[in-house]
């Protein structure tokens, strides 16, 4: 029997509505700082009910060499900043040889696409630059960041809408576990455009009853929730075999103990509790642990009516009512393709601090949600194992098992 290696996290990097870096992200989350605001473009659209979003503060990316930057959309610049921080946090000034890179996004840059489309529609193709095309390729952030940072192992970009970030972490985990690579950078990136909010609004899935107080707008599991708040950012992890990490003296932040993914085929937009239950159970099986080993479920829970109900039903079916459940969407909004990996960074910190974060804005749990133990205030407690969920429109589900590094 071949023993597969333990896979550990040794580096993290982030760009979020709290700013550039893991430190502002964690500071924002652990202090419960608000980062949402009204969006003028949405306020100008009477038909769109939601008016709020969370966006990354304006940043100067001129430090990225021009030749690398010219082909980077905003989300690629976020990814560049996060990738550099991740490498440095893992103890590298430059990418190690053969590093794998697993990163995607929900869409490519809408703002650049619209500009190129406008030129096409108006019969001005002569205005389209090479660098415009390079910014709207589906794998543009992956390609441009790997070029800029000389990441020369396999570069693969899973694009699974809201599950993108976690799916790429899962794919990287499998690549390390099975020996395709010994080290990988992984996660998701996304840039906000008002079209995101407008499209989710059409699907009746946005928050619209707290437009006057944006930081109250996203309220997973709460009885007054109406939907999600769109957001943006990038979250990346550096993962490798435990053997590799120990041999080079790297600090092990946490272990990835298991992963599973499945697909909802009955409905494009709403996962069934049964499919979610199967996904989480498959992840537990993959990790070789039982439901009672889990201390916290960090839910996907975006604040939509149906999605939150289905996830609590699945959680209750797998773990029973005593499972502690939190969601970080109330703090961060839904960072889309970045959500799974950005929230995994927070989960790693919860394991390290032995403190679990509350679900922001959850005051009165919706009675239609199945019984679980909601975390409504920060709690210091022993946390050894966390299940992290991400579910996507399109039916792509995934669950990752994170374990404390002792």
């Amino acid at each position: 029997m071949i023993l597969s290696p333990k896979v550990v996290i040794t580096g993290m990097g982030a760009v979020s509505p709290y700013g550039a870096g893991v430190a502002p992200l964690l500071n924002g989350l652990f202090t419960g700082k608000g980062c949402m605001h009204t969006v003028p473009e949405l306020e100008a659209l009477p038909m769109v009910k939601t008016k709020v979003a969370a966006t990354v503060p304006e940043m100067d990316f001129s430090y990225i060499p021009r030749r690398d930057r010219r082909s980077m959309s905003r989300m690629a610049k976020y990814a560049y900043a996060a990738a550099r921080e991740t490498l440095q946090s893992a103890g590298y000034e430059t990418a190690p040889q053969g590093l794998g890179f697993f990163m995607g996004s929900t869409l490519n840059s809408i703002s650049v696409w619209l500009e190129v489309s406008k030129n096409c529609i108006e019969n001005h193709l002569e205005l389209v630059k090479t660098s415009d095309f390079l910014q709207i390729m589906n794998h543009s952030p992956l390609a441009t960041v790997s070029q800029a940072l000389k990441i020369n192992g396999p570069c693969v970009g899973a694009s699974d809408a809201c599950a993108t970030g976690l799916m790429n972490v899962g794919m990287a985990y499998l690549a390390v576990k099975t020996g395709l690579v010994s080290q990988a950078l992984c996660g998701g990136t996304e840039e906000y455009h008002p079209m995101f909010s407008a499209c989710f609004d059409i699907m009746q899935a946005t928050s619209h009853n707290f437009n006057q107080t944006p930081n109250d707008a996203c309220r997973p599991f709460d009885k007054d929730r109406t939907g999600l708040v769109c957001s943006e950012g990038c979250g990346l992890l550096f993962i490798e075999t435990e053997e590799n990490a120990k041999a080079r003296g790297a600090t092990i932040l946490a272990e990835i103990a298991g992963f599973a993914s499945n697909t909802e085929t009955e409905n494009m937009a709403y996962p069934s509790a049964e499919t979610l239950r199967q996904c989480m159970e498959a992840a537990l099986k993959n990790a070789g642990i039982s439901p009672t080993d889990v201390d916290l479920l960090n839910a996907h829970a975006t604040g939509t009516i149906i999605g939150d109900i289905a996830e609590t039903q699945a959680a209750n079916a797998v773990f029973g009512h005593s499972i502690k459940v939190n969601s970080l969407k109330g703090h961060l909004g839904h960072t889309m393709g970045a959500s799974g990996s950005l929230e995994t960074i927070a989960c790693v910190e919860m394991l390290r601090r032995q403190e679990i974060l509350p679900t922001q804005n959850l005051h009165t749990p919706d009675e239609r949600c199945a019984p679980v133990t909601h975390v409504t205030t920060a709690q210091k407690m022993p946390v050894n194992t966390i299940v992290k969920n991400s579910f996507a429109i399109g039916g792509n589900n995934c669950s990752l098992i994170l374990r404390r590094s002792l």
Partner: protein
Amino acid sequence: MITREEIIRLTNEALKKEFELTDEQLVPTAHLQNDVGLDSLDAVDMVVVLEQKFGMTLRQGYDIRSIVTLNDLYNFIEKLARDHEAGK
């Protein structure tokens, strides 16, 4: 009629903005690739910005291999401008 000085000024203005260059880099003898640092992708985008700047088509007859220095580029644009003005 556009003067050569005006062509040089407009060209430099466009290149400085698009490729983040300094005045010191934009001397007529500068090699576009080796001194100014433009690569093949830049060369394509350079045509796009110069066409917008001068309001005429450059890409027909444009052969990047024949334009080595900045002075070559000025000459190329000047010839096109003269043809353009002559209705050719």
